[in-house]
């Protein structure tokens, strides 16, 4: 499907969604509370069929966090980027690991690196950081580790 | 002609002349014990070097070539290293069993030496149930592995030991059945009788195809019994790190290591005795001229040549094949080897009764 068609389709599904121009792929901004509402039809709608979540990450913008989902369809080969702004102090968003199983590991990674709390995640534990890790999240911009970080 | 049996006889006569009979017996036993232990040491050194060279050449490498001329002293250096290493006993281990296990492995290997005929008339103990004795004693081997695995208090060791238990118990069957084929053909369990019966040709040639099948099954089964690849599930270093001897180090590990090689030697010696005529030179029926020529080669060379040939084949297996999985291992035994060897035994029995063999 072309970007224009995707745009109309997504507006139908979620009128509150806003769009960003530029870049190869259509970028959709959604509110965190609407994300699950959009995610279900994105995966299950036969004409959209975004079955391949190939990148799930988070960006720390200092004032807020922003979740970025890159979705693609192995059938139609169209790609879409979903972004969602999260509050920096209490970040939380619905987990999508029951829709795309790959999200389970990626969400665990984002959870420990950025401190995003994924609601209804089946197994939200530390994956990379050692057990009993306390302190801030390493990938945040304000993270400082005087011992292990080397500034040149 | 100069031979092992002459030396033994002369020694016996000389001892009898010098000492009283009881002392002679004691001295002879001590000499035999020392001979067996030194044979062990030499075998360990030679077989480890052989394995390393065989594997190296198959793997397009050079292999050990630094210690001594052409790397011949490499295994001596290895032994030295193992000797000076600390023999750790893990904290939670069952100390007695843990330290006993390697010795049991060695003792079993030593006991198995008794009925083997190394050369013409050169045998420690030619008992009348020689072959039965071998298959009975060799199954004690599993006890030492189970002990080592259990006492280590390590889950990898335990799993290795359990695998090994299942494996050795099953493969005893087909090894036993293929030994039986030769016993049926010979009509005797005595090792010297079995060898004498091959004076006009080895059983592998005389026994038609059934003997060949029995030989193949025997080789497969003993490879499994000695825990050699592709049946090295008890060790399986990519799965269980080192299996039952994960926690062993230093000399205790060396004993296991040595026992493995000595066991390989023994089973190959048995195989050579049963199927390839032991020390019996290569004879063809009534070709007296040819047989005479063959007799000029000393019997010990015949024996060791055949044994080392079989050892080479087992090493060849190890460096070619991937490892089996535990259920496939048992499938192979119960679904393939056992039925085939049973039918084979039936054929051989019929053949022996009807005197179809040469």
């Amino acid at each position, binding site marked *: 499907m072309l970007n224009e068609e995707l745009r109309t389709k997504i507006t139908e599904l979620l009128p509150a969604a806003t769009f960003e121009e530029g870049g190869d792929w259509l970028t959709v901004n959604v509110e965190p509370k609407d994300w699950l509402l959009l995610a279900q039809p994105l995966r299950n709608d036969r004409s959209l069929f975004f079955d391949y979540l190939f990148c799930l990450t988070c960006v720390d913008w200092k004032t807020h966090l922003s979740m970025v989902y890159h979705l693609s369809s192995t059938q139609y080969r169209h790609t879409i980027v979903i972004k969602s702004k999260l509050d920096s102090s209490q970040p939380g968003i619905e987990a999508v690991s029951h829709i795309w199983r790959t999200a389970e590991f990626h969400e665990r990674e984002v959870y420990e690196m950025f401190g995003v709390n994924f609601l209804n995640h089946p197994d939200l534990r530390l994956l990379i950081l050692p057990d009993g890790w306390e302190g801030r999240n390493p990938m945040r911009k304000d993270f400082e580790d005087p011992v292990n970080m080397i500034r*040149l | 002609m100069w031979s092992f049996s002459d030396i033994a006889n002369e020694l016996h006569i000389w001892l009898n002349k010098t000492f009283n009979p009881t002392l002679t017996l004691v001295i002879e036993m001590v000499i035999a014990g020392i001979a067996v232990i030194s044979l062990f040491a030499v075998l360990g050194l030679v077989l480890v070097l052989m394995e390393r060279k*065989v594997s190296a*050449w*198959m*793997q*397009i*490498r*050079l292999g050990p070539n630094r210690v001594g001329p052409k790397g011949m002293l490499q295994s001596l250096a290895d032994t030295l290293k193992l000797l000076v290493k600390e023999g750790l006993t893990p904290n939670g281990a069952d100390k007695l069993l843990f330290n006993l296990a390697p010795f049991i492995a060695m003792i079993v290997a030593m006991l198995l030496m008794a009925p083997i005929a190394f050369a013409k008339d050169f045998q420690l103990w030619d008992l009348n149930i020689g072959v039965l004795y071998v298959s009975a004693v060799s199954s004690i081997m599993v006890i030492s592995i189970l002990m080592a695995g259990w006492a280590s208090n390590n889950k990898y060791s335990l799993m290795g030991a359990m695998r090994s238990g299942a494996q050795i118990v099953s493969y005893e069957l087909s090894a036993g059945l293929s030994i039986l084929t030769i016993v049926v053909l010979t009509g005797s369990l005595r090792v010297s009788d079995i060898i004498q019966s091959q004076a006009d040709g080895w059983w592998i040639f005389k026994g038609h195809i059934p003997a060949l099948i029995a030989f193949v099954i025997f080789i497969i089964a003993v490879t499994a019994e000695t825990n050699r690849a592709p049946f090295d599930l008890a060790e399986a270093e990519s799965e269980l790190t080192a299996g039952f001897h994960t926690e062993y180090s230093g000399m205790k590990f060396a004993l296991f290591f040595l026992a493995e090689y000595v066991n390989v030697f023994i089973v190959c010696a048995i195989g050579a005795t049963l199927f390839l005529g032991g020390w019996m030179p290569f004879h063809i029926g009534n070709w007296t001229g040819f047989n005479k020529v063959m007799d000029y080669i000393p019997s010990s060379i015949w024996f060791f040549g055949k044994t080392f040939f079989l050892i080479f084949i087992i090493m*060849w*297996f190890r*460096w*070619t*094949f991937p490892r089996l999985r535990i259920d496939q291992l048992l499938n192979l035994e119960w679904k*393939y080897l056992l039925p*085939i060897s049973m039918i084979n035994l039936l054929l051989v029995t019929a053949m022996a009764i009807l005197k179809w063999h040469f």
Partner: protein
Amino acid sequence: MFITKYIKEVYLGIKSLLVGMKRTGYYFTHHKEIITQQYPDNRDTLNLPERFKGEVVMPHDEKNEHRCTGCQACELACPNGTIKVITQSVLLADGRKKKAIDKLVYHLELCTMCNLCVVACPSDAIVMAQTFEHSVFDRTKLTKILNNPGSKIMDGIE
């Protein structure tokens, strides 16, 4: 039929094993195929390609002159802070002052041989050498000063 299938299975299985054994047996008997290189012994015949990135060096000519202007492009290009250029101003013959290097400190222990400094250098003053045996007993020996003592910049390099 079951029996023929069984026999065929056994036959094909054994055949596949023998094919593998034939291959390893071939290598066992053909020692010409051995590829082992006996490294410390063959040091004299080792032939490293001229592009091999072993360490950064600064070539000097026979008059003990190098080509480094002290522009610090390499220092900026380095991702790890491997290179530190310490400059000084020298008095030229005609009385002008000019920036030149005092020391070019190179930390081999930090270097990842990424070649970015060599590419960045505008006057080709530094190149990659083909040495690779870098181990020393003392870590401070890995910090090297690339310009020779008393060396000068070549004429005509700006």
